[in-house]
């Protein structure tokens, strides 16, 4: 350990550099606030946005913790891809009763809060105790010296082997090649699975142009519906057309729109003779 300390010359007494500490104290509260927002905000879209903020902060953490590759991947994959997917599904599903923050399970909130705090304390305390006196290594430090095993920092390849991306690629395609291939298989399976889950089978064949035309002729009403406002005093969409005898045509108004009561009994235009009168 002392050898490693010597290799990381600028680190003193296990402290991280001041800049990193400042960044932590800014980003840490921000990420916590984002996480709290995710849990507490009623609107799911707001939750998603605050989660995106937390992930951005985490990406920053990766960058300052000498993992630039992971930092950028975090920002691109998580905040870019995954969070968009979340928002997309949110929009698709729309808002419903699930947004309600009213708790239906008795004691669930209290228990969850107690367990959460207890778990956080337990892990934080134990982690703090376990890593008491641990020091940060300088992953950007000098290359290991040949013939000096201790300078390999446990035999690991470090960022100084070119760059962080190069080093990770080295590891991925050598030591972790099999696992890497496994993730590719996993992603393919996931893609196929998502397709199968989201796919909806068409239950009847798609209607052809010919079938549609035949259906229209056979319906007994081949001509289009009258437009609204014809022969009327208004041309608003809710104004029914007037038939030659002066009565209103209900067909001319889109279904669902209320025909205004003022059109119910429109007097016939002068000169137009109703059928009944003609007979008389």
């Amino acid at each position, binding site marked *: 350990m002392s050898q490693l300390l010597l290799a990381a010359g600028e680190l003193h007494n296990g402290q*991280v550099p001041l800049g990193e500490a400042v960044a932590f104290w800014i980003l840490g509260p921000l990420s916590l606030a984002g996480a709290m927002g995710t849990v507490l905000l009623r609107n799911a879209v707001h939750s998603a946005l605050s989660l995106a903020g937390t992930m951005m902060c985490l990406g920053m953490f990766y960058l300052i913790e*000498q*993992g630039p590759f992971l930092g950028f991947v975090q920002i691109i994959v998580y905040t870019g891809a995954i969070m968009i997917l979340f928002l997309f599904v949110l929009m698709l599903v729309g808002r*419903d009763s699930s947004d309600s923050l009213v708790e239906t399970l008795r004691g669930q909130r209290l228990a969850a809060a107690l367990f959460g705090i207890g778990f956080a304390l337990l892990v934080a305390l134990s982690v703090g105790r376990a890593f008491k006196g641990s020091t940060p290594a300088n992953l950007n430090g000098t290359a290991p010296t040949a013939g000096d095993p201790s300078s390999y*920092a446990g035999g690991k390849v470090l960022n100084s082997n070119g760059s*962080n991306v190069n080093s990770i690629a080295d590891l991925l395609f050598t030591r972790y090649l099999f696992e890497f291939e496994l993730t590719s298989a996993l992603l393919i399976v996931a893609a196929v699975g998502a397709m199968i889950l989201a796919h909806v089978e068409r239950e009847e064949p798609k209607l052809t142009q010919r079938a549609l035309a035949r259906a229209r002729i056979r319906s007994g009403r081949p001509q289009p519906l009258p437009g609204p406002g014809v022969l009327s005093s208004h041309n608003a969409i809710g104004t029914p057309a007037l038939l030659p005898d002066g009565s209103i045509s209900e067909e001319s108004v889109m279904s669902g729109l209320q025909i205004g009561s003022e059109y119910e009994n429109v007097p016939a235009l002068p000169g137009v003779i109703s059928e009944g009168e003609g007979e008389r």
Partner: protein
Amino acid sequence: MTPTYYLVLSAALFSIGAVGVLVRKNAIVVFMCIELMLNAVNLSLVTFSRINGSLDGQIMAFFVMTVAAAEVVIGLAIIMSIFRTRRSASVDDANLLKY
């Protein structure tokens, strides 16, 4: 400030995510909280990498991201198909498997 602080932060984020899973009813928000937990673990892994002076932690975090991506895809597809049949995204509404 030592790297342990990152770990404590990670524990806090993880716990907040866990509480979110327990208290939110919208399945998508629950899922987001699970992502939060995964990210918290990722922060720990990166910090371990820093402490140990090796890149294995970062590789691990990388794999976690991959798995998380696959999981999100499948999970959201499941939520979609449940929503299609039940017209609800509430985890409490899908409670048929019981006594």
